[in-house]
Protein backbone atom coordinates (compact mmCIF):
# COMPACT_ATOMS: atom_id res chain seq x y z
CA UNK A 1 0.00 0.00 0.00
CA UNK A 2 1.73 3.20 -1.08
CA UNK A 3 1.74 6.24 1.06
CA UNK A 4 -1.18 8.50 0.63
CA UNK A 5 -1.38 10.30 -2.60
CA UNK A 6 -0.55 13.92 -2.28
CA UNK A 7 -1.48 16.06 -5.12
CA UNK A 8 0.82 18.88 -5.93
CA UNK A 9 -0.35 21.23 -8.53
CA UNK A 10 1.66 24.08 -9.77
CA UNK A 11 0.90 26.24 -12.69
CA UNK A 12 3.77 28.10 -14.24
CA UNK A 13 7.11 27.06 -15.55
CA UNK A 14 8.46 23.66 -14.71
CA UNK A 15 11.48 24.84 -12.73
CA UNK A 16 9.34 26.91 -10.47
CA UNK A 17 6.91 24.05 -10.11
CA UNK A 18 9.65 21.66 -9.13
CA UNK A 19 11.28 23.92 -6.58
CA UNK A 20 7.95 24.40 -4.85
CA UNK A 21 7.17 20.76 -5.21
CA UNK A 22 10.49 19.85 -3.61
CA UNK A 23 9.82 21.88 -0.50
CA UNK A 24 6.74 19.80 0.24
CA UNK A 25 8.60 16.50 0.14
CA UNK A 26 10.22 14.80 3.09
CA UNK A 27 13.22 13.61 1.10
CA UNK A 28 16.09 15.42 -0.53
CA UNK A 29 17.58 12.95 -2.93
CA UNK A 30 15.00 11.26 -5.07
CA UNK A 31 13.96 10.22 -8.51
CA UNK A 32 10.85 11.84 -9.89
CA UNK A 33 8.93 10.05 -12.58
CA UNK A 34 6.35 12.10 -14.40
CA UNK A 35 4.26 11.16 -17.40
CA UNK A 36 6.74 13.16 -19.45
CA UNK A 37 10.08 11.96 -18.21
CA UNK A 38 12.26 11.10 -15.25
CA UNK A 39 14.30 13.48 -13.17
CA UNK A 40 16.90 12.28 -10.74
CA UNK A 41 19.20 13.81 -8.18
CA UNK A 42 18.59 16.36 -5.51
CA UNK A 43 15.28 17.86 -6.40
CA UNK A 44 16.26 21.02 -4.62
CA UNK A 45 18.75 21.67 -7.38
CA UNK A 46 17.27 19.76 -10.26
CA UNK A 47 16.33 21.82 -13.22
CA UNK A 48 13.57 20.60 -15.41
CA UNK A 49 14.05 22.67 -18.50
CA UNK A 50 14.06 19.61 -20.66
CA UNK A 51 11.06 18.06 -19.03
CA UNK A 52 7.55 19.31 -19.12
CA UNK A 53 6.18 18.86 -15.66
CA UNK A 54 2.70 20.11 -16.32
CA UNK A 55 0.73 19.47 -19.43
CA UNK A 56 -2.57 21.29 -19.14
CA UNK A 57 -5.46 19.97 -21.10
CA UNK A 58 -8.05 22.41 -22.35
CA UNK A 59 -10.57 19.61 -22.47
CA UNK A 60 -11.08 19.13 -18.78
CA UNK A 61 -11.86 21.47 -15.95
CA UNK A 62 -9.43 19.65 -13.78
CA UNK A 63 -7.42 16.54 -13.94
CA UNK A 64 -4.73 14.83 -11.99
CA UNK A 65 -1.76 12.81 -13.01
CA UNK A 66 0.30 10.61 -10.82
CA UNK A 67 3.93 11.42 -10.30
CA UNK A 68 6.05 8.82 -8.65
CA UNK A 69 8.77 9.96 -6.30
CA UNK A 70 11.20 7.24 -5.33
CA UNK A 71 14.14 7.41 -2.96
CA UNK A 72 15.14 3.77 -2.98
CA UNK A 73 13.61 0.46 -3.85
CA UNK A 74 11.32 0.51 -0.84
CA UNK A 75 10.40 4.11 -0.24
CA UNK A 76 8.11 5.73 -2.67
CA UNK A 77 5.61 8.50 -2.67
CA UNK A 78 2.91 8.76 -5.24
CA UNK A 79 2.32 12.39 -5.85
CA UNK A 80 -0.28 13.94 -8.01
CA UNK A 81 -0.39 17.26 -9.65
CA UNK A 82 -3.64 18.71 -10.76
CA UNK A 83 -4.34 21.13 -13.48
CA UNK A 84 -7.37 23.30 -13.31
CA UNK A 85 -8.36 24.79 -16.54
CA UNK A 86 -11.25 26.22 -18.45
CA UNK A 87 -13.52 26.97 -15.52
CA UNK A 88 -13.45 30.74 -15.82
CA UNK A 89 -10.79 31.15 -13.20
CA UNK A 90 -7.08 30.92 -13.23
CA UNK A 91 -5.85 29.36 -10.03
CA UNK A 92 -2.31 30.33 -9.19
CA UNK A 93 0.09 28.18 -7.25
CA UNK A 94 -2.50 25.80 -6.05
CA UNK A 95 -1.46 22.82 -4.01
CA UNK A 96 -4.17 20.24 -3.88
CA UNK A 97 -4.02 17.24 -1.62
CA UNK A 98 -6.07 14.17 -2.23
CA UNK A 99 -6.24 11.48 0.35
CA UNK A 100 -8.18 8.59 1.72
CA UNK A 101 -6.53 8.51 5.10
CA UNK A 102 -9.13 6.39 6.80
CA UNK A 103 -9.46 3.98 3.90
CA UNK A 104 -13.22 4.19 3.75
CA UNK A 105 -13.29 4.59 -0.02
CA UNK A 106 -14.14 8.27 0.06
CA UNK A 107 -11.48 10.43 -1.50
CA UNK A 108 -11.10 13.92 -0.18
CA UNK A 109 -9.43 16.76 -2.07
CA UNK A 110 -8.38 19.94 -0.35
CA UNK A 111 -5.70 22.57 -0.41
CA UNK A 112 -3.37 24.30 1.98
CA UNK A 113 -4.88 27.76 1.91
CA UNK A 114 -8.64 27.47 2.25
CA UNK A 115 -11.20 25.44 4.12
CA UNK A 116 -12.68 24.08 0.92
CA UNK A 117 -12.77 20.39 0.28
CA UNK A 118 -14.22 18.05 -2.28
CA UNK A 119 -15.22 14.44 -1.85
CA UNK A 120 -15.88 11.57 -4.19
CA UNK A 121 -15.53 7.90 -4.80
CA UNK A 122 -12.43 8.49 -6.90
CA UNK A 123 -9.65 11.02 -6.85
CA UNK A 124 -10.97 12.62 -9.99
CA UNK A 125 -14.45 12.95 -8.52
CA UNK A 126 -12.99 14.50 -5.39
CA UNK A 127 -10.94 16.97 -7.39
CA UNK A 128 -13.87 17.92 -9.60
CA UNK A 129 -15.99 18.44 -6.50
CA UNK A 130 -13.23 20.49 -4.90
CA UNK A 131 -12.82 22.74 -7.93
CA UNK A 132 -16.48 23.57 -8.26
CA UNK A 133 -16.76 24.03 -4.51
CA UNK A 134 -13.72 26.29 -4.42
CA UNK A 135 -15.11 28.67 -6.99
CA UNK A 136 -18.61 28.61 -5.54
CA UNK A 137 -17.24 29.29 -2.08
CA UNK A 138 -15.08 32.14 -3.31
CA UNK A 139 -18.05 33.76 -5.02
CA UNK A 140 -20.15 33.34 -1.89
CA UNK A 141 -17.50 34.97 0.27
CA UNK A 142 -16.86 37.75 -2.22
CA UNK A 143 -20.55 38.68 -2.36
CA UNK A 144 -20.65 39.02 1.43
CA UNK A 145 -17.29 40.61 2.06
CA UNK A 146 -18.73 43.37 4.26
CA UNK A 147 -20.42 40.91 6.58
CA UNK A 148 -17.77 38.29 7.15
CA UNK A 149 -16.29 37.22 10.44
CA UNK A 150 -12.51 37.59 10.73
CA UNK A 151 -12.07 33.90 10.04
CA UNK A 152 -14.00 34.02 6.77
CA UNK A 153 -12.48 37.37 5.86
CA UNK A 154 -9.02 35.86 6.13
CA UNK A 155 -10.13 33.02 3.91
CA UNK A 156 -11.50 35.44 1.32
CA UNK A 157 -8.25 37.36 1.36
CA UNK A 158 -6.28 34.21 0.73
CA UNK A 159 -8.60 33.07 -2.03
CA UNK A 160 -8.54 36.51 -3.64
CA UNK A 161 -4.79 36.28 -3.97
CA UNK A 162 -5.05 32.96 -5.72
CA UNK A 163 -8.17 33.10 -7.84
CA UNK A 164 -8.21 35.43 -10.75
CA UNK A 165 -11.36 35.73 -12.75
CA UNK A 166 -10.77 35.28 -16.42
CA UNK A 167 -12.81 37.71 -18.42
CA UNK A 168 -15.41 36.00 -20.49
CA UNK A 169 -16.01 37.10 -24.02
Amino acid at each position, binding site marked *: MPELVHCSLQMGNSSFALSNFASALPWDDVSIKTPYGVMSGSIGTTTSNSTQFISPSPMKAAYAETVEVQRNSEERLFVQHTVINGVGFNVAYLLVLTSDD*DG*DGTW*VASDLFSNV*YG*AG*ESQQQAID*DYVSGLIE*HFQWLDSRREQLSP*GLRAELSELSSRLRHIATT
Partner: protein
Amino acid sequence: MLRNKLEAILDSSKDHRFYELYAEGQWVFRTKVSTGGKYKSLGDDLIAKMAKQCFVNNKQFIDLVDCPMSKAQWVAHLKANGHIV
Protein backbone atom coordinates in the same frame (compact mmCIF):
# COMPACT_ATOMS: atom_id res chain seq x y z
CA MET B 1 -26.43 19.16 14.63
CA LEU B 2 -25.60 22.04 12.33
CA ARG B 3 -29.21 23.01 11.83
CA ASN B 4 -30.73 22.11 15.17
CA LYS B 5 -27.94 22.96 17.52
CA LEU B 6 -26.07 25.78 15.82
CA GLU B 7 -29.14 27.04 13.94
CA ALA B 8 -27.23 27.07 10.69
CA ILE B 9 -29.09 27.62 7.42
CA LEU B 10 -28.99 24.99 4.70
CA ASP B 11 -28.19 26.41 1.27
CA SER B 12 -28.73 23.84 -1.46
CA SER B 13 -29.51 26.27 -4.23
CA LYS B 14 -26.40 25.45 -6.24
CA ASP B 15 -24.33 22.39 -6.97
CA HIS B 16 -23.33 21.84 -3.37
CA ARG B 17 -25.08 21.79 -0.03
CA PHE B 18 -23.69 24.20 2.52
CA TYR B 19 -24.65 24.95 6.06
CA GLU B 20 -24.14 28.63 6.78
CA LEU B 21 -24.36 30.48 10.05
CA TYR B 22 -25.10 34.17 10.41
CA ALA B 23 -24.77 35.32 14.01
CA GLU B 24 -23.93 38.49 15.85
CA GLY B 25 -24.08 40.53 12.65
CA GLN B 26 -21.65 38.48 10.64
CA TRP B 27 -21.30 35.29 8.64
CA VAL B 28 -19.49 33.00 11.01
CA PHE B 29 -18.89 29.80 9.07
CA ARG B 30 -19.88 27.87 6.03
CA THR B 31 -19.41 24.14 5.78
CA LYS B 32 -20.16 21.83 2.94
CA VAL B 33 -22.10 18.65 3.39
CA SER B 34 -21.19 15.92 0.97
CA THR B 35 -24.22 14.08 -0.20
CA GLY B 36 -22.83 11.06 -1.98
CA GLY B 37 -24.37 7.72 -1.17
CA LYS B 38 -21.30 6.53 0.68
CA TYR B 39 -21.16 9.50 2.99
CA LYS B 40 -24.05 8.66 5.30
CA SER B 41 -21.55 8.21 8.06
CA LEU B 42 -18.68 10.66 8.08
CA GLY B 43 -15.20 9.24 7.81
CA ASP B 44 -12.26 10.79 9.57
CA ASP B 45 -11.28 12.65 6.41
CA LEU B 46 -14.59 14.45 6.12
CA ILE B 47 -14.80 15.11 9.83
CA ALA B 48 -11.44 16.83 9.65
CA LYS B 49 -12.55 19.04 6.79
CA MET B 50 -15.87 19.98 8.34
CA ALA B 51 -14.14 20.70 11.64
CA LYS B 52 -11.73 23.03 9.88
CA GLN B 53 -14.62 24.85 8.26
CA CYS B 54 -16.16 25.31 11.71
CA PHE B 55 -12.83 26.57 13.09
CA VAL B 56 -12.50 23.76 15.60
CA ASN B 57 -10.31 20.70 15.83
CA ASN B 58 -11.59 17.19 15.22
CA LYS B 59 -12.27 16.48 18.88
CA GLN B 60 -14.15 19.71 19.35
CA PHE B 61 -16.20 19.00 16.23
CA ILE B 62 -17.15 15.58 17.56
CA ASP B 63 -17.99 17.20 20.89
CA LEU B 64 -20.25 19.59 19.02
CA VAL B 65 -21.98 16.71 17.28
CA ASP B 66 -22.24 14.51 20.35
CA CYS B 67 -23.31 17.41 22.53
CA PRO B 68 -20.61 17.84 25.18
CA MET B 69 -19.88 21.19 23.55
CA SER B 70 -22.80 23.60 23.51
CA LYS B 71 -23.37 26.30 20.93
CA ALA B 72 -22.48 28.90 23.55
CA GLN B 73 -19.21 27.12 24.25
CA TRP B 74 -18.46 26.95 20.54
CA VAL B 75 -19.14 30.68 20.10
CA ALA B 76 -16.91 31.39 23.09
CA HIS B 77 -14.19 29.32 21.44
CA LEU B 78 -14.53 31.28 18.20
CA LYS B 79 -14.30 34.58 20.06
CA ALA B 80 -11.33 33.43 22.09
CA ASN B 81 -9.52 32.51 18.90
CA GLY B 82 -10.45 35.62 16.95
CA HIS B 83 -12.72 33.91 14.43
CA ILE B 84 -15.57 36.20 15.33
CA VAL B 85 -15.61 39.54 17.10
